[in-house]
Structure formats: structure tokens, C-alpha cells
């Protein structure tokens, strides 16, 4: 056991725990990642309500804890304690297993998400393929939930979502392939499907794939960004659960804990697909400009970012603490908010420690990029109306799919332009000589 720990702390080991063949560390990583994702979903819940509220000129949760900070916990307790209703006539087994399948599919994806070159549970040879495949299993859970509820609204929701997810997977896959194609443009000439390999390829090629072959990379990223919103059933593609049409879509009949599993699955899926996008196009765990602004000075400068973020959060919290009303009724809340700020500041300080600092860099940048995506998700929800089903299909099949094929072909042509040029040249030469 001590060997495992010392091995991990040994900086010379540059593989993930899964590759290193250490079941103990793999287990620890699994627990950390799953726990972290669950925590992130809880935070996301609060943030979404707050950010959306502020976009919509309201306050959002304010009662439970200072600024509603304890709201997610209250929600969780409520959901766990709520009566779990299984409708009469429902297929009990399928009804019971459907949310599990969604969760299983979504959390399996995280086994290959690279939070850093060594911070992943494992590095699979078919990483991206695995991610796409397993995340597509989530649709099974939705279909089963809708069918098992024995009710019309969930059934329509399930039909909609299965059609939607299957359609958008196609465009999504094409966009992914064009990124994978770009990985093969290194010295060895072989591409990779491994998530870590893809990020390494971006580092080796000195460019994030979003800027590669401008604008091809950007278009591919755009296709993926649209498709991933559709894949996760979020606004403006939230038709399977469109509350104004289908009350709640496939989870209309679910309640309590089981319903919360759907929510957990949905938010975890959002994070999962965002991490695919980040890995493929946005340089994964790399900090901005790793090549342009390289050197020890820049490394040092960027290494302060994690701590600075937490100091910023602490500053915001302290500012809010000062603005709390001076009234005995709010005393506990004020102290709580102050304590929250203190925790943030403490985390910031810990992140300044050299050992931690070096370890945390890649994770920080990865999570930072995820946070940007999460904000975008919330922003979409605050801005866009909902697509109608036929329009959604039109966007998927008539716009994104041709775009994806076009981008894929163009990427191939541009990638092989020298070879093609040589070939044409040769052919022309032979033609002339004949």
C-alpha cells in the first residue's frame, strides 16, 4: 500500500492509474471523480438557479442559508424523503431500472475523461469511441422510463428523445471524426482515439483543434456544440421534457429520489459532453497559450490562477458578507457566509503550496473550461425559445449533418494537401509525358 502512494507522488510516473496498473489508485480515482461529479452537479444546481434568476431579474433561492447556499442540500433531503410513487400499470422493473441505466451510462463516461495527463481513471485506446458509445446508452434509460410509465406524455417524450438523440449522434460523430483526423497530422502519421493522446496531439501541433485549419476546426466545434446540447436534452432542444407541451416528458411519472437520479444524470451528462468538447477542441487540460507563452516565468504566472480564482471567490463572499443586513435575525447567516469565504480563502492558500500547485494546474484549467460550458448551457436556457420537433429534426439532418460531412471531407483534403498536390502533379506530369 505505501508503495502505491509513493509511486503516485513520484513525478516521474507519467501515466494514468489505470495504465500504471494500480487497482488501488484506480479505485481512489473512481471514487474521487464520481464524488466530484456528484458535488459538481449539486453546485451546478445552485448556480443554475442563481444565474438564471439573475438573468431574469429575480433573486433565486435566498432562504436556505445565506444566498440560498444550502438550498441544494435542502433539495437533496427533500427529494430523498419524498414518497416514491410508482404508477399503477407501470412496468415496475423497467421503471425501477431506467434511472439507474442513465446514471450508469453517464458515469461510465468519466472513466476516460482526462482531467490531466495523469489525472484520469484510465487512458483507453478507444477513449473517444468509448465516450460516444457509452453516452449514447443514456437514451436507453430515457426510452425505458418513458415506456415503463404507461402514460402518454412520457411515451411521447421518450419517442421524441430517442429520435432526437439518435439523430444528433450522427452529426456529433462526424464532428468528432474530423477532430480525430487532425490528430493524425503529427510526425508519426498515426492518429489516436485516446483522450489523452488527442490533447497531446494538440500540444505537439502547437494549436487547439478549434483553430486548426481555420475555420474548419471552428465549424466542427460548432456542430459538436449544437449537437451536445441536443444530446443532453437541454434548452433550446429540451423537447423530451418540454414542460409546456409534455408536462415533464419522459420523467413525468417519476418522483422523489428516482426523479433526482434523472436530474443527476442530466447534469452529469452535460459535464461529460462538455469535457469531450474541451478535450477535442479546446486543448483539454492545457492552460492558454502553452506554446506561445512558454517558459518558467509564464508557467509561474499561470500557476497562480487556481489560487487567484479562489481568492476572488473569497473576496466576493466577503463582500456579500459585508453587505448582509445588520440585524440579529441575519447573524447566523452572516457568520455562515463569512465562514464560506474563509473556506474559499483557505483553499486558495492551500493551492499556493508548491506541491499542490503543480499537481492541480491541469485539473484547474480543465474544470475552468467546463465551467465556461456550464455557463453557456444556462445562458442558452435563459435566452432561447424551444424548437419544435420537426424543426429540430430539420436542424439535425438537413443542416448539421451535411455540414459535418462537408467539414470532414474538407479536413481530409486540407490535411492531405501536400500529398494531393504531389499526386496531381505527378498525374499531370505523366499525362503530359504520355
Amino acid at each position: 500500500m505505501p508503495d502505491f502512494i509513493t509511486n503516485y507522488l513520484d513525478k516521474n510516473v507519467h501515466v494514468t492509474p489505470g495504465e500504471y496498473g494500480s487497482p488501488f489508485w484506480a479505485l481512489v480515482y473512481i471514487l474521487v471523480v464520481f464524488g466530484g461529479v456528484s458535488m459538481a452537479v449539486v453546485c451546478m444546481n445552485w448556480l443554475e438557479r442563481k444565474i438564471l434568476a439573475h438573468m431574469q431579474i429575480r433573486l433565486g433561492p435566498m432562504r436556505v442559508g445565506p444566498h440560498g447556499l444550502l438550498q441544494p442540500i435542502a433539495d437533496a433531503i427533500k427529494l430523498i424523503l419524498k414518497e416514491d410513487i410508482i404508477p399503477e400499470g407501470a412496468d415496475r422493473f423497467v421503471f425501477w431500472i431506467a434511472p439507474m441505466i442513465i446514471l450508469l451510462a453517464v458515469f461510465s463516461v468519466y472513466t476516460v475523461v482526462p482531467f490531466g495527463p495523469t489525472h484520469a481513471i484510465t487512458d483507453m485506446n478507444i477513449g473517444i469511441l468509448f465516450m460516444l458509445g457509452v453516452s449514447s446508452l443514456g437514451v436507453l434509460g430515457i426510452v425505458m422510463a418513458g415506456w415503463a410509465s404507461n402514460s402518454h406524455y412520457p411515451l411521447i417524450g421518450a419517442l421524441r428523445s430517442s429520435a432526437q438523440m439518435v439523430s444528433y449522434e450522427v452529426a456529433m460523430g462526424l464532428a468528432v471524426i474530423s477532430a480525430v483526423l487532425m490528430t493524425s497530422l503529427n510526425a508519426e502519421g498515426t492518429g489516436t482515439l485516446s483522450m489523452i493522446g488527442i490533447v497531446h496531439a494538440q500540444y505537439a501541433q502547437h494549436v487547439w483543434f478549434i483553430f486548426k485549419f481555420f475555420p474548419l476546426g471552428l465549424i466542427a466545434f460548432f456542430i459538436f456544440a449544437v449537437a451536445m446540447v441536443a444530446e443532453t436534452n437541454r434548452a433550446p432542444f429540451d423537447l423530451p421534457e418540454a414542460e409546456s407541451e409534455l408536462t415533464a416528458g419522459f420523467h413525468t411519472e417519476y418522483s422523489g429520489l428516482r426523479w433526482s437520479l434523472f436530474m443527476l444524470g442530466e447534469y452529469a451528462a452535460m459535464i461529460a459532453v462538455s469535457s469531450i468538447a474541451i478535450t477535442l477542441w479546446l486543448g483539454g487540460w492545457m492552460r492558454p497559450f502553452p506554446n506561445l507563452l512558454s517558459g518558467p516565468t509564464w508557467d509561474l504566472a499561470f500557476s497562480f490562477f487556481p489560487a487567484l480564482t479562489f481568492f476572488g471567490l473569497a473576496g466576493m463572499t466577503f463582500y456579500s458578507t459585508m453587505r448582509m443586513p445588520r440585524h440579529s435575525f441575519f447573524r447566523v447567516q452572516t457568520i455562515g457566509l463569512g465562514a464560506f469565504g474563509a473556506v474559499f480563502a483557505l483553499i486558495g492558500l492551500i493551492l499556493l503550496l508548491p506541491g499542490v500547485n503543480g499537481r492541480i494546474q491541469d485539473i484547474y484549467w480543465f474544470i475552468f473550461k467546463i465551467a465556461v460550458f456550464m455557463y453557456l448551457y444556462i445562458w442558452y436556457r435563459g435566452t432561447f425559445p424551444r424548437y419544435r420537433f420537426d424543426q429540430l429534426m430539420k436542424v439535425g439532418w438537413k443542416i448539421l449533418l451535411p455540414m459535418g460531412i462537408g467539414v470532414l471531407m474538407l479536413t481530409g483534403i486540407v490535411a492531405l494537401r501536400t500529398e494531393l498536390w504531389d499526386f496531381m502533379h505527378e498525374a499531370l506530369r505523366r499525362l503530359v509525358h504520355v
Partner: protein
Amino acid sequence: MTDSTSSVSHLDLDESKKTFLDANELILNMGPQHPATHGVLRVILRLDGEKVLGLECVIGYLHRGVEKIAEHRTYTMFNPYVDRMDYVAAVSNGLGYCEAVEKLLNIEAPPRANYIRVILTELNRVASHQLWLGTHALDIGAMTPLFYTFRDREEILKIFEKYCGARLTTHAFRIGGCQYETYEGFEKDVKKFISFVAPKIDEYEELLTTNRIWVERTKNVGTISAKDCIAYGVTGPVLRASGVKWDIRKAQPYAAYSKFDFEVPTGQNGDTYDRYLVRMAEMRQSLRIIQQAVDGIPEGPIMAKVSKVMKPPVGEIYHSIEAPKGELGYFIVSDGSTQPYRVRVRPPSFVNLQALDLMCRGQLVADVIAVIGTLDIVLGEVDR
């Protein structure tokens, strides 16, 4: 969720035309508890996949027998009841009723009262359209406009509250004029509101008018031709969006409307998008009317000479006004006593809702939601 209802029999299609692919028709019961039916409307949809083959509205869940109550109340006592029909445009309801009884009594409200009536009614029209916009956008999936419109509607309700003490069911007018003189600073408040809300309407339009998804969701959805509108008695913005330039304020002016300069906005296609544009333009026109009314409000009494015990002569009267939803008519029969012998309310929502079936056939389920929203019905008025 009922699988089949005996009352959908008339939706049955010709059985012989069905193939085995069409066999799986779905009867979907939408409402009375459904987030997008604006109250307790129940719509029984007959679907082929997501396509609507036909629908039937089941109404009456909110029936309170307003017309029956009227026969057992004096003219004055019944006045607050009308506010409870279209509760988002209570002022318009009150105006229609008061004017109808005034006509029956053969009296006229003084000019100042008429101006106050116009100001409050138009404010109410703006409020009603704002509420419509917010809920309609929410139905189509845009959450944010709801909060924007409610924020701005609040300012109108504040003016109502300052004027008569009530926000929603205002009971602002009395038979013969107005009960209350305008409060100190009323004109300032109203002018402030106009300058406050005009840019806000631009803000709503910014969010929606050119939004691709919004346009795709509303263009060519729930289209109704001018001919069908007239045949089905559809009035108000729905009629105007189909291209019929008809507004009772212009056609048969009441209150002080003949004194103001305003346009009647119309559309061409009669689809949901045009109705949206017409209502947005109507809000702007209402602001114009309010501005003119506030600028030109005359001094003078606000109440005509009306005896405490109202006994209209025997006879009957029909009077209608342009409510935010369409033609709101009151048909009152007097038997010479203090109580109306019969009060018939011609509710715009009720009649407009009748066209829902026509507008939804061949569209998708999501469009039914959009069409219910665009008809701007208030179930309190449909069911009375």
C-alpha cells in the same frame, strides 16, 4: 389521462381511408391540469404521431354563473362581478358594463371621467398584452420574457393600486363615471410609465422578433384567414393579424376614443407571428393614446348625475367595447326594476377559442400550445 372519451366521436376519421400505418392514433388529453392551457382548459387531442387530426375543447371548469348572479343583484352590485371574468383585463370589463348600463339609463359619463377611463383601460390593455406575451413566450420555451413582462406590468398595477386600491380586480369605474378623482401625481406617474415602458417593449422585441427559433416556431403556425376569422366570429388582435382592419375603438368609438389619434395595426398572414407583431404594435399604440389622454385630460366632474337607486326603463341594450382579447359585449335587458332582468356577456375568449380546432388541424402538438397561447384566452372569461 383518459384513453378514450365518448365525446371525441366527431373527430373520427373515415375508417376506410386508414392504412395499417395510420392505425396507431393517440388520444391525448391535455388539461385541465396542464402547464400550458392557461387555466383549466381541457383539450382532447387526436394525434397521428405528433400531428393533430382534430381536437375538442372541454370548458366550463370555471363556470360561476355570472349571468345568473347578475339577475339577482342590482346594477351597481353586479359591477364588481364583471372584473372576475377576464381578470387580467378587469378594467376593460368594467368599462364595457358601465357604458352598457349608462346607455340603458340614457346618461353619459362626463368628459373627464371618459378620459380617465381611456387612460386606465389602455394601461390595462398594455398589462394584458404583457401578460399574454410572457406566458406565450413561456409556452414556446423562452423563459425570460415572462419575468421581464411581469416586472413592467407591475408598474401598471402600482398605478391601479394608487388609483383605486386594487391591483387586479380593480372595479375602477362606476355607472355614470368614476368613483375616484385621480390621485396627486397620477399624470406624472402615467407619463413616467410611458417613458419607462416604451424602451422595455423594444427590449421584448429584441429578445424575440428576430430570434430565429421564435420566428420558426410562430411563422405559419395556427394560420387563420380573414374569411375564417369573420365566419368564426374571431375578433381582436387575431382578426387584425389576418388583415381585417377593424377595431371597435375606431369603428364605433366609445368613451373618448374618437378624440385620439392612433393606428389600428394589422398583419397579413394571420399566423402566430403576425398576431405577436400586432399585439406588440398595439401596446405602442396604447401608449400613444395614453400620452394624448394624459396631455389633454379636461377638468370637470367625474360623475354624471345618477340616482342612488338605478331603475333603467324597460328595454334592452347591446353595447360592446374593444377589450384586449376582442369584442367584449354586454346585452342587458331591463324590466324597469333595480335588478337587470338578463345580462348576457359576449366574451371574446369564448368565441375565439372556438377557432382553435380550425387553427390546429394538421399542425403538431407543440403548435397547439403556441396557438392556445396566441389566442390569448382567459378561462375566467370563457367559462364565466
